[in-house]
């Protein structure tokens, strides 16, 4: 007799193995399965994280898809559940269901230039795709990471950015809205970096992630620079409950963000981006 398939709705218990404070309100949890099994995911997918007794929230996976021994999540503490996640320490347990949702189409972009455009904590859901691109570097043309943060203190993954920048085969440009301290880098919005180019618009695929307003202007700048809407991808956030298309909580126009997204091709959602409060 076949063993029953594991129920995707039941949380698997994971134990916190590492906690990293990234920014004043943002932290990274590395968790390993208590049952010892591994965990596979595709860049762009998310999990529902359960803080027992508090609630569950969708959080993108920010680790390396090649490492199945652990799951990495980077979260900004904004409300009840994310703050409770922030309270977890090494050895604490949490529930995980997933991975859910669509992926950044990293393989479909083989042979093309890759442009990652990230704003604020939006760098976290892009990190698995950047790791994938680095691991398969010879399959792409130029690779650019364009990242905008509010101030130098708000720059996420500084070590990663420095490491990526140190490679000779990719360009990493970082800009801040407001220079503080002895910041000697670029000042201005991330769309300025997009407009500077450095990629072949006819041959480029762009992945954009950040707050919705940033994605809208980021995608517009990419279009202005000549990348067609079909080659621009964005990651959308909506409140969720089930994570797998059952409850309708995450409905966005004709889509359920949890199963049709969170990663959408821009031409399919561009019009909805401009509808307030949809």
């Amino acid at each position: 007799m076949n063993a029953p398939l594991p129920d995707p709705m039941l949380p698997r218990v994971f134990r916190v193995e590492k906690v990293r404070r990234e920014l004043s309100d943002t932290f990274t949890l590395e968790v390993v399965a208590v049952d010892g099994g591994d965990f596979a995911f595709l860049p762009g997918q998310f999990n529902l994280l359960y803080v027992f007794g508090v609630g569950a929230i969708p959080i993108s996976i920010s680790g390396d898809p090649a490492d199945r021994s652990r799951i990495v999540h980077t979260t900004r503490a904004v409300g009840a559940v994310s703050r409770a996640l922030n309270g977890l320490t090494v050895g604490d347990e949490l529930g995980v269901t997933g991975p859910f949702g669509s992926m950044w189409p990293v393989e479909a972009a083989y042979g093309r230039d890759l442009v990652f455009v990230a704003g604020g904590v939006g760098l976290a859901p892009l990190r698995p795709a950047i790791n994938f691109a680095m691991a398969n570097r010879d399959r792409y043309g130029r690779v650019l990471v364009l990242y905008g943060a509010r101030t130098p203190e708000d720059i996420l993954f500084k070590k990663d950015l420095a490491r990526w920048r140190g490679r000779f085969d990719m360009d990493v440009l970082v800009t801040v809205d407001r220079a503080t301290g002895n910041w000697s880098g670029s000042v201005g919005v991330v769309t300025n970096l997009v407009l500077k180019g450095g990629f072949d618009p006819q041959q480029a695929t762009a992945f954009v992630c950040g707050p919705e307003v940033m994605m809208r202007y980021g995608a517009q700048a990419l279009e202005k620079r000549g990348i067609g809407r079909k080659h621009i991808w964005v990651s959308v956030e909506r409140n969720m409950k089930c994570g797998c298309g059952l409850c309708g909580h995450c409905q966005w126009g004709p889509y359920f963000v949890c199963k049709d997204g969170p990663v959408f091709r821009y031409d399919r959602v561009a019009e909805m981006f401009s509808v307030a409060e949809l």
Partner: protein
Amino acid sequence: MAGTGDLSGTIGAQPFFDGIDAELRDLLAGCAAPMDFADGDALIRTGVIARAFYLIRAGEVEVMVEPPAGPPIVLETLGPGDVVGWSWLVPPHRGAFTARARGEVEALAFDGACLLGKMEAHPALGFEMLRRFVPVMAHRLSAARLQLLDLYGPDVPRPEMLEAEPEEPPPAPAAAGVRAEAEAAKASLAIVKNRAEDEP
């Protein structure tokens, strides 16, 4: 010193003047001169007559506002290929911002009065200059607006997020009691799932 022939070639090589007619390029060269700036030098000062614009060839320039109290606020950094300044075009020709060299800067300076004269006499040059400057002005204006929007902050709360005031979270569960809670969570999830399956 560079002759106008050399300058005309240099101007033609700048992306800002991409595709410009050779004749117009020569007219521009007659109003241009290479200019270097040391770290901290002002290219343009707020409120001061600014009759030139600059095309950056090397180095970086900070565009800033200087509030009456407190240190200057850098709004944008500009680099090679960017133009600095449009007050030369718009009376009363006073700088709206301060622009300072960050490190050493090599630029081409264009004399605004000279250019305006040539633009009057050669409408084709006037059209070319406005065609190239207006998008730069529009871009800088929208970039300034985006900065006001706080592009990277949390999204404007949507109505469903505002349904209830978020409660203070209870303390994170201690590792020991967690398994029982996991079982309870599993049980409630199973109920949700069964309900979902019951639905047509």
